[in-house]
């Protein structure tokens, strides 16, 4: 515990560095020097507008989505007492994808672009409610996390089938945009969507962070957590709702970006152990830095074209994680 402030400060520094890196590099050849001039008010108007209207909101979006995925992934691992849990394990992403793909395939998205994130968010919320309701009816009176995980996986599988059905009816162009959305894509970033995402994330993040101590107890089993004074049912329900809300908002804003929510919490666990008072905020910050870097790479590698961010997180994240595993656990 004594290390906590120092470790979080270190991560915050890394986030600031990643943010500066992300904003400094892009297809247009605006470099770190221009960034400084634009921020200090000199520099020309085009450069300023590229930085302030394109790169900065995109970096902010990447930061928030990454943080939300890191934090919610960590929360689902604690809630389900399962190290393999990640933000999409309970079907929230499947619901979001059904909503988004429906908007794309029906052509609504062309006329009303803002319907895409809205459709995704509503789909995610519907999935969250459905999974919870099935779990509640299967195990009345309490929230059984084993039933919850079954219910989430099954409903997620059903949503995947619906997505395939929708895609099979789509024309080539909407098929392509739907697939791109599902791979995770932050290119639509603007200040409005970033601000909205931040607004949705705050209550979820505060709720989850307030449960840090309770998650420590929960990791020892529900009976033990009860004896130590945790309100187990309330903790579980709050964790489920808050984490699902964060995932829904993140997926609506950035599509289904994989691996961040699984790898980031584990990297923190391996390095610094499993005390959620450190683990939760550290997962948020590390997710932020990780997605900032991944998204910058996605923009740079094949510039002026772009890779889907979700492809980069998988391709870069998996070897990184394997290296961490091979290095051995925390000493």
């Amino acid at each position, binding site marked *: 515990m004594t290390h906590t402030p120092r470790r979080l400060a270190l991560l915050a520094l890394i986030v600031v560095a990643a943010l500066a890196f992300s904003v400094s590099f892009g297809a247009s050849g605006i470099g770190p020097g221009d960034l400084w001039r634009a921020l200090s008010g000199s520099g020309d108007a085009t450069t300023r507008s590229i930085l302030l209207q394109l790169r900065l909101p995109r970096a902010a979006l990447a930061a928030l989505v990454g943080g939300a995925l890191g934090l919610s992934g960590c929360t689902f691992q604690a809630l389900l007492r399962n190290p393999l849990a990640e933000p999409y394990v309970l079907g929230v992403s499947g619901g979001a994808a059904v909503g988004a793909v429906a908007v794309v395939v029906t052509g609504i998205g062309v006329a009303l672009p803002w319907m895409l994130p809205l459709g995704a968010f509503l789909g995610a919320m519907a999935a969250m409610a459905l999974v919870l309701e099935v779990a509640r009816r299967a195990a009345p009176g309490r929230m059984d996390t084993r039933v919850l995980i079954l219910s989430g996986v099954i409903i997620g599988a059903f949503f995947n089938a619906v997505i395939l059905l929708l895609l099979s009816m789509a024309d080539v162009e909407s098929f392509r945009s739907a697939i791109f959305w599902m791979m995770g894509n932050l290119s639509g970033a603007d200040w409005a969507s970033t601000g909205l995402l931040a607004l949705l994330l705050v209550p979820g993040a505060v709720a989850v962070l307030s449960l840090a101590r309770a998650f*420590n*107890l929960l990791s020892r*089993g529900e009976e033990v957590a009860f*004896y*130590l*004074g945790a309100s187990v049912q309330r903790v579980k329900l709050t964790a489920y709702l808050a984490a699902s809300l964060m995932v829904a908002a993140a997926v609506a804003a950035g599509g289904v970006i994989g691996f961040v929510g699984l790898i980031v919490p584990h990297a923190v*666990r391996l390095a610094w152990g499993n*005390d959620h008072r450190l683990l939760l905020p550290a997962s948020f910050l590390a997710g932020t830095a990780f997605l900032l870097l991944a998204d910058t790479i996605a923009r740079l590698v094949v510039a002026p074209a772009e890779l889907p961010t979700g492809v980069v997180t998988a391709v870069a994240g998996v070897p990184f994680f394997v290296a961490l595993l091979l290095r051995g656990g925390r000493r």
Partner: protein
Amino acid sequence: MRDTAPSRDWRPVLRGRDLTFTHRRAEEAAVRGVSLSVSPGTLLAVVGPNGAGKTTLMRLLSGSLPPQEGGVTLDDRPLAGLADRERALAIAVVPQSESSPFPVTVREMVGMGRYAHLGAWERSGTRDRAVVDDAMARCAVAGFADRQLGELSGGERQRARIARALAQEAPVLLLDEPTAGLDLRYRMELFHLLRQLRAAGLGVLVITHDLNLAARFADRLLLLDRGRALARGAPDEVLSRESLEPVYEWPLRVVPHPGPGSDTGAPQTVPLRRDDR
């Protein structure tokens, strides 16, 4: 939270009346009409064969299972009416076993005992750390406080779990087979510790299969068989060949502890070999 923590002199009586519980899909009740109280300054040992209902009885008393008949009170207040934190400030429990997919250190583990004393955003203070250090010292786990639980022996892990319960500073302590996996020395150390806690005014209930240590350390015994309280009272009133043989369905003799020591004469149970019947 600090203000709501009860005074350290609070010595409540935990009382169960006519407790009955049948597990789902079970044909017979696990606990039938058992009444008992855990009083301040008393060490009560619950003994009985496997499946007698000892663990279920402890779960009923601790509030984790609601009784289907009867009720549990803490100083005449219904236990079910207490908030989770309030209950944990009054009753600490060491359940039989636990496991976790996420490793923690001994210090983190024992620190969890402070949960009910702290608010959601409150950081543990000097006193919390002192209580944790003291609990670790009493259970002889302070020497490896920063090692991970998974690297320790079964006995060391068990002592860390007991230290966590002590860190709760609750006036009532319930332990479910705490000596399982402990060697001779630590079994003795543990019962001495329970004796100390009892002397400090705690009400202690221990479930154990060790009839001989129970006879030497406990003030009172409760013998359970098939969910019923078969006998209760001082060790020499409960432990006899007549009461134990039918319960365990095994030939045995009860002989006085030869001494030396203050517990000389305590009834010691010696099961016979089958061929000597």
